[in-house]
């Protein structure tokens, strides 16, 4: 089959790779209908997130059709249209039972790498670093889905692929941001990063009753999109001092909840990076979020970081009595609710899929996605080009 593969830093290409097969009895094989880019892919492609290997198939947000089931699969049958959680989790360990599937004990086939990096083994992920299991990704014609009874979800008939593909990762990630922040009616919520996850966190905050939601970014198109589609306030952080402006807009208190949805700075090469004003290798969004949060408030880290960051304002965390929380998304817990809200038109994220390409044009799609030109927020690939 064909697949979009990582070949080395800043090099991706469509290659022929072996078709996936059932390896474990709880696997299914899914024929991919749509697979979407994610900002965390850029860290992998640039080589900043460690432990990629040439030939790795990228992609972790996808919707497709079940074409083969393992002998121990109980909840799926051939022909099911499913959205698959990007997180590979068993559904039965202590962490999964606590509703923390991205901390699953049994979803990562390379525990030694993860233990070395993070002193613990998180769940696996499709199309990601071998520190997260090295599972082949979804930018391909077919993908193997382990623990399918727990990670694949049947898509309601009335939901389009265009909408459902966001339930794989971006929408549950945004939902988690509002949940970790314990957003309540009356809150002021500030969100750094107006990519898909940031905008879906903003929408989740609105649905949880936030009084005001203020999105911060420096990409004009994205701010305009957030204003138009979600009805939030925005701050262009290259034009105003976002911290000062947030203090002003919150009567000097600071935001009740600050959500960082930026992650590691993009690669330094050329002018690719710079979604926010702080340079590469700095936790720019997190630092600003800590400073902008009110005393006793909560800072949520949704953006992906690989290892260490410097310049973290720990003094402000202590003296302001902040709660800092972070997690990879817990889709196994959130996807049913996300799909239900999509079905009721409360979540309509398909506007974020600004570009669609055949998988054959994958490299061009990633160039556009990385450079954020032509108003690009997310790129969706289809194996057959339709």
């Amino acid at each position, binding site marked *: 089959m064909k697949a979009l593969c990582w070949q080395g830093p800043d090099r991706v290409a469509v290659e022929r790779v072996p078709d996936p097969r059932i390896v*474990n009895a*709880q696997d299914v094989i899914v024929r991919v209908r749509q697979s979407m880019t994610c900002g965390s892919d850029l860290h992998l492609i640039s080589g900043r997130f460690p432990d990629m290997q040439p030939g790795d198939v990228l992609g972790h947000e996808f919707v497709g059709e079940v074409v083969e089931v393992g002998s121990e699969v109980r909840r799926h049958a051939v022909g099911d249209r499913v959205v698959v959680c990007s997180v590979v989790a*068993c559904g*039965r*360990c202590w962490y999964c039972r606590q509703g923390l599937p991205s901390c699953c*004990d049994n979803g990562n086939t390379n525990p030694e790498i993860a233990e070395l990096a993070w002193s613990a083994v998180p769940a696996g992920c499709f199309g990601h670093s071998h520190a997260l299991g090295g599972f082949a990704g979804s930018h391909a014609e077919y993908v193997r889905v382990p*623990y399918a009874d727990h990670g694949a979800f049947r898509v309601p008939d009335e939901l389009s692929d265009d909408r459902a593909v966001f339930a794989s990762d971006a929408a549950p990630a945004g939902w988690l941001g509002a949940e970790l922040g314990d957003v309540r009616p009356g809150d002021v919520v500030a969100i750094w990063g107006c990519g898909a996850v940031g905008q879906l966190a903003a929408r989740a905050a609105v649905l949880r009753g936030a009084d005001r939601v203020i999105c911060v970014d420096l990409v004009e198109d994205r701010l305009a999109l957030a204003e138009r589609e979600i009805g939030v306030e925005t701050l262009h952080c290259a034009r105003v001092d976002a911290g000062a402006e947030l203090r002003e807009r919150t009567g000097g208190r600071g935001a009740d909840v600050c959500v960082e949805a930026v992650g590691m700075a993009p690669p330094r090469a050329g002018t690719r990076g710079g979604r926010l004003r702080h340079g590469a290798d700095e936790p720019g969004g997190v630092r600003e979020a800590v400073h902008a949060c009110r005393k006793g408030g909560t800072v949520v880290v949704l953006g992906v970081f690989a290892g260490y960051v410097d310049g973290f304002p720990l003094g402000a965390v202590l003296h302001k009595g902040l709660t800092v929380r972070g997690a990879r998304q817990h889709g196994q817990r959130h996807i049913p609710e996300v799909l239900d809200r999509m079905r009721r038109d409360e979540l309509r994220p398909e506007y974020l899929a600004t570009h669609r390409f055949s998988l054959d044009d994958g490299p061009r799609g990633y160039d556009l996605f990385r450079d954020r030109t032509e108003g690009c927020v997310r790129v969706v690939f289809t194996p057959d080009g339709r």
Partner: protein
Amino acid sequence: MDVSGRTADGRAGPRTYAVTIDRPPAEVAPDGKLPEPVARLGPGVAVTVRPAPGGRGTELVAVLCEDEPGPLARLSARLVGEDRRAAVRIALRQAKQVAETGEVLR
């Protein structure tokens, strides 16, 4: 997963490895019978089964009854595929996966 052991004189002593399985002890080791991946480790590994606090299942603790080798010996063992420490860690992890999910994820 592992807990380094040091002798009183500072040498690296036998090393302890542990894993918590989210199942009751009677299920993890029925009638004291160790789970297959751990039982296969054979002599030289002392295994203890005890309940985890807070109802979190079972702690499976394995002690490799030999002094910790030096870095060169470890590298050599790893290269020839005879790293006993790695074997213990893998066995514990597999025992946990089988008990919790019914299979070892590949």
